[in-house]
């Protein structure tokens, strides 16, 4: 799975702004508003990846319980899917 649109991520203050860019961007009237973890997930989703790879990356980068990470990733992916931003 990967993001359906191309995003440019910009760090503003203590958050990340994901701005749709490229030819398809005019079809999407939205922007992503992310914290650091959300940004890491979204960056991974700019190329084809899967749930397990995202969880492994977060466990490498953050000091957190696996169950907490799994819940966070599932919630994030569901949210992106509900917004129609994931291609699978």
């Amino acid at each position: 799975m990967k993001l359906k649109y191309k995003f440019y991520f910009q760090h503003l203050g203590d958050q990340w702004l994901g701005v749709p860019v490229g030819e398809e961007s005019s079809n999407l009237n939205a922007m992503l508003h992310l914290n650091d973890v959300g940004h890491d997930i979204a960056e991974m989703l700019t190329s084809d990846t899967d749930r397990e790879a995202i969880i492994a990356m977060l466990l490498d980068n953050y000091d957190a319980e696996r169950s907490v990470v799994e819940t966070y990733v599932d919630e994030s992916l569901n949210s992106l899917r509900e917004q129609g931003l994931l291609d699978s």
Partner: protein
Amino acid sequence: MEELLFTILRRALGFADRHEKLPSEVFPVSKASASQTLHDAPQPDWQSVIELLRSHALLAVSADAILSLPEEQRPSPVLQMQVMQYAASVTQMHHKLNSVVSEVFAMLHDAGLHPVLLKGQGLAPLYPMPYTRSCGDIDIFLLPEEFQQGCRMIFDYCDMPGESTQPLPNNIHLTAHKDDDVKIEIHYLPADTAISDISDEYNRWLMDNFRHLPSPTQRNVPTVPPVQVNVVYVFEHILKHLRSGGVGLRQFIDWMMLLHAGKDTIDHNLLRHDLQRFHLLDAWQVFGGILVYQFGLPESEFPLWNARKARHSQGRNLEYILFSGNLGATLGHYKGYYYLPPSFRRDILALRYSLRYQSFMYHVLPYDTPRRVMGDIKRVLTNQIKRLKNKK
């Protein structure tokens, strides 16, 4: 309000003193009574600051500095969201413009032409966050002997095949539109100058410099003017806007970022010679004060610094610049004038500011002043006559 604006901008551009705090009068935490918490302390008028930043085309540039403030000092969540949305729209526009720049320059280079990217899109990379510099159009200069061919190619690229490539009288560029939202100005002259008496000589000088630029390293990478020439070009453009309707602080920041980029390479003697040749030296030294005093550029990075002259940039002159805004965006809106009706009264107010300003400009750039003053008076009278006719 101005003090907060400049503090935010210094932080955004990386010129803030490491220990610089936000102005205490807009964040008077120390004046809060013992029973007050930080959250009860008076907040600055963020709405006005944000409007002023927007009118000077600097809201996106400032976004990171605003959103990096401690939570209790930031604007309301609604305003924060507006700032982010604005920054997002500017970023999106940059990607569109850069994609067109890349395609057009590759096409022109492949045809053996020597286009030069002027102004905005060529200056954005000098900013700490390039995609936040407000952008509008793409300015491309073509050498006279390459103009017809290059212009035809750009019109074809924009699906405007029948468009005339003949230069227009009283203009310096033709305009092409790509997909409705990208405007390309195709310049046959680089500058519509404020220094009309030497306009031809100035344009010849710019073109001579543009003619001998090194070839690009990659076919889709645009060629930009050398910093040594660009600092004069960008500064002269500021004067042009100052004298014809208003200048945005963003233009001063463009100038500053160029000077910062060229701090080790600009030849001061050559620069002095060029500025004197075009009667720009006095104005250069006066307006340098805004870069140093307001934006925090170190004096050592401003070539030909003159503290005595730089002081003249302050007070009323700075107020006029804040008053006018980008392309006159805030003319009549600043300091509560916003609430005046769009009428003769507002015109007179703008004229009063303008005349006061022209009288100052007379000392630094006397050539055009009488003509500009007459132009301002004529504009107010014409507006009034139009209104009277409409009433009838």
